[in-house]
């Protein structure tokens, strides 16, 4: 584990900050940079370490467990979801350090699912509201992708040229071409040409275990360094435990536990004019529940009863095919092509909404676990199948999951973490639409594999990403935050991360999370006026 580079700050006076951000991940990094560059004083609390890629990212599938949120949590319900490595991050950069970098925008209809499909709910914002921020984030990250994009809202070329296809993506393209399915090379948050002091991708293929090349545009190497240069105080090893309200009912400060270099843990508190929670769909609700007070016994921001409700994950079953060619599926970013031909509702199908299909490139452990679980294999047959690793290629869906208030994040009634705080309990079950959509996505993926020449195919179940659990909306009865991510209950407390999602979309969520964060930052700067956002009255919410 690395030690936080800001240890020298210990003991210095804690002046109240203009803005305090909890979580230095996809959203927190964007917020920190935009707010600090606008002249506000910014403090960021991050539970995990401040990574140094060349030193800490050791190109080892097993050692990468340091990148994930491995504190205890409980997962249950009819279809318990996998947490840990699958959907969480810890440390500066959050899960952008180990995400697969697929940088897709949501579609116009994603924000209007109630209007277009008569199900779920509409977002309080539209695609047009986010579009300039998608542009901005794509430029900042140096998204590398095609000049022309065949699906969704009209858009210009990606800022950096697309990456070459690896063997898996070439097979995917071959299968799509044979079936008349449109495909495109995947827009990725890893640079295809030098950008500032970062070199381009060298196609090592260890992307999801931390990029030691520094080509990967995680917030660790993009937004956060700019935030620090603009004066943001990014405090690693600081686990927020409670948001404290002042006598006026406004957020006054955040209590946190700092881990010192020698492992000692000390209690500290940081006051701020504005507090933003960017801890993602599990830790944000958990922190709100753990911040319950006499005036909010069921948890902070929870007057609607919706904190922790509406958790979504993307169904992401994959199909693997065995090909006569040597594929070497471990080379390059895992997803170098994709199709969105099945993205929106199609009357000829027996379910609403749709999916993206994306190639994957699991390294040996991930492939072995998928094969073991997917085929129920172990023993000599399993070891023999693994000898064929280099002949496999796989792709899977990122499918829409309809929101349900029965899918929740709550506090576990018994289990406590090392600090004595209740841990999160996640309860999840697929809906009928989710199941039908996933079955069709698997069938389509299998057709593509067969059309590409697969000799045999098999399927591995999986989920990906977290969305929802503190959704945004147009009124305080049906949502936790407004269209600017500002909470209805406490005017100077924001929730800005993937938990504000109203519906899941069928794309990897990071780019949308970051566009939302850029938009919220713009709003706070505009409201802050002369740079002291201390006048957040109860009226005047957008």
């Amino acid at each position, binding site marked *: 584990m690395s030690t936080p580079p800001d240890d020298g700050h210990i003991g210095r006076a804690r002046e109240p900050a203009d803005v305090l951000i909890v979580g230095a991940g996809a959203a927190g990094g964007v917020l920190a940079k935009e707010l600090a560059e606008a002249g506000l004083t910014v403090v960021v609390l991050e539970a995990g370490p401040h990574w140094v890629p060349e030193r800490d990212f*050791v190109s080892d*599938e097993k050692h990468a*467990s340091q990148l*994930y949120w*491995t*504190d*205890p*949590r*409980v997962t*249950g*319900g009819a279809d318990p979801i*996998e*947490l840990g490595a699958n959907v969480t991050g810890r440390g500066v950069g959050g*899960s952008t350090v180990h995400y*697969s970098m697929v940088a897709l925008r949501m579609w116009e209809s994603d924000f209007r699912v109630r209007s277009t499909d008569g199900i779920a709910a509409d977002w309080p914002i539209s695609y047009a509201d986010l579009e300039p921020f998608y542009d901005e984030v794509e430029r900042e990250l140096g998204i590398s992708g095609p000049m022309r994009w065949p699906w969704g809202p009209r858009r210009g070329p990606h800022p950096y040229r697309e990456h*070459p296809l690896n*063997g898996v993506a*070439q*097979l995917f393209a071959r299968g799509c071409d044979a079936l008349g399915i449109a495909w495109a090379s995947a827009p990725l948050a890893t640079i295809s040409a030098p950008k500032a002091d970062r070199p381009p*991708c060298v*196609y*090592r*293929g*260890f992307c*999801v275990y931390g990029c*030691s*090349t520094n080509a990967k545009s995680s917030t660790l190497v993009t937004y956060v360094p700019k935030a620090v240069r603009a004066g943001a105080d990014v405090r690693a090893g600081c686990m927020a435990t409670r948001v404290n309200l002042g006598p006026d009912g406004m957020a006054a400060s955040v209590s946190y536990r700092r881990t010192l270099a020698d492992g000692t843990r000390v209690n500290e508190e940081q006051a701020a004019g504005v507090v933003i929670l960017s801890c993602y769909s599990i830790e944000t609700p958990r922190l709100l529940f753990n911040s319950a007070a006499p005036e909010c016994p069921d948890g902070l921001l929870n007057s609607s009863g919706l904190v922790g409700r509406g958790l979504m994950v993307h169904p992401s*079953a*994959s199909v693997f095919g*065995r090909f006569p060619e*040597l594929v*070497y599926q*471990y080379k*390059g970013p*895992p997803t170098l092509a994709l199709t969105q031909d099945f993205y929106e509702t199609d009357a000829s199908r027996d379910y609403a909404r749709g999916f993206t299909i994306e190639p*994957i490139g699991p390294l*040996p*452990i991930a492939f*072995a*676990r*998928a094969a*073991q*679980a*997917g*085929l*129920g294999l172990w*023993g*000599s047959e*399993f070891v023999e*199948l*693994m*000898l*064929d*690793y*280099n002949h496999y290629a796989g792709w899977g869906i990122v499918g829409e999951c309809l929101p349900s208030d029965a899918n929740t994040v709550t506090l576990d009634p018994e289990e406590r973490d090392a600090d004595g705080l209740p841990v999160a309990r996640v309860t999840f079950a697929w809906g009928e639409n989710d199941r039908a959509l996933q079955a069709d996505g698997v069938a389509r993926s299998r057709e593509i594999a067969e059309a590409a020449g697969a*000799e*045999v195919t098999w399927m*591995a*179940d*999986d989920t990906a990403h977290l969305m929802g659990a503190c959704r945004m909306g147009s009124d305080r009865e049906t949502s936790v935050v407004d269209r600017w991510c500002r909470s209805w209950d406490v005017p100077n407390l924001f929730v800005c991360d993937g938990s504000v999602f109203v519906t899941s979309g069928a794309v990897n969520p990071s780019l949308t999370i970051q566009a939302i964060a850029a938009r919220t930052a713009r709003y706070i700067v505009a409201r802050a006026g002369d740079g002291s956002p201390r006048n957040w009255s109860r009226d005047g919410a957008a």
Partner: protein
Amino acid sequence: RVEQVPRYRFFSVEEARTIEAICARIVPQDDRPPAERVPLAPWIDERLHDGLGDGYRYEDMPDDRDAYRFGLRGCDEAATQLHGQAFADLGPGAQDDVLARVAAGEASGDAWAHLPARRFFQELAGEIIATYYAHPTAWAEIGFSGPASPRGHIRLDLGRHDPWEATERRPRSSTDIVHRALERDHQDEGGAHATGGPTQ
């Protein structure tokens, strides 16, 4: 991982015998001389001793340490009831029979009152294979060229390989293995829950 294999600190002598015997059936290495086999159980012991988790616990499972204690006891109970001896003392065929029953959730034994056998098997098998395929011996065996840092890869096209990447000496398709596995009807259940799935 290659040279410094930890000694047992979590498992009892009996438990260590059982887990070693299980590892030898999940990932058989009898074609290698003992000194060249990839050690597996000691790394599981180390993780449990250090109390490191993977970030979540299924609500129907006890914590990892109890899960391993109950689960290994359950394997021994099932072995004794089905074949009259502790798991480690059985022959390979009888051991596979016990593991298949645990995997299917059909193993006998009082220990299974504390945890579902199927889930335990899934977690156990997942950890054993993750430990094995973290080892350079296993990488070489399957033709994975390793970290590729800082040089990266130059030849990405289908069928092309960089000079340091493996080629095949004895191509042998896994197609038949997959067909047999599928015939055992596993996929009709929608596949087991893939742990450590490949998408992110």
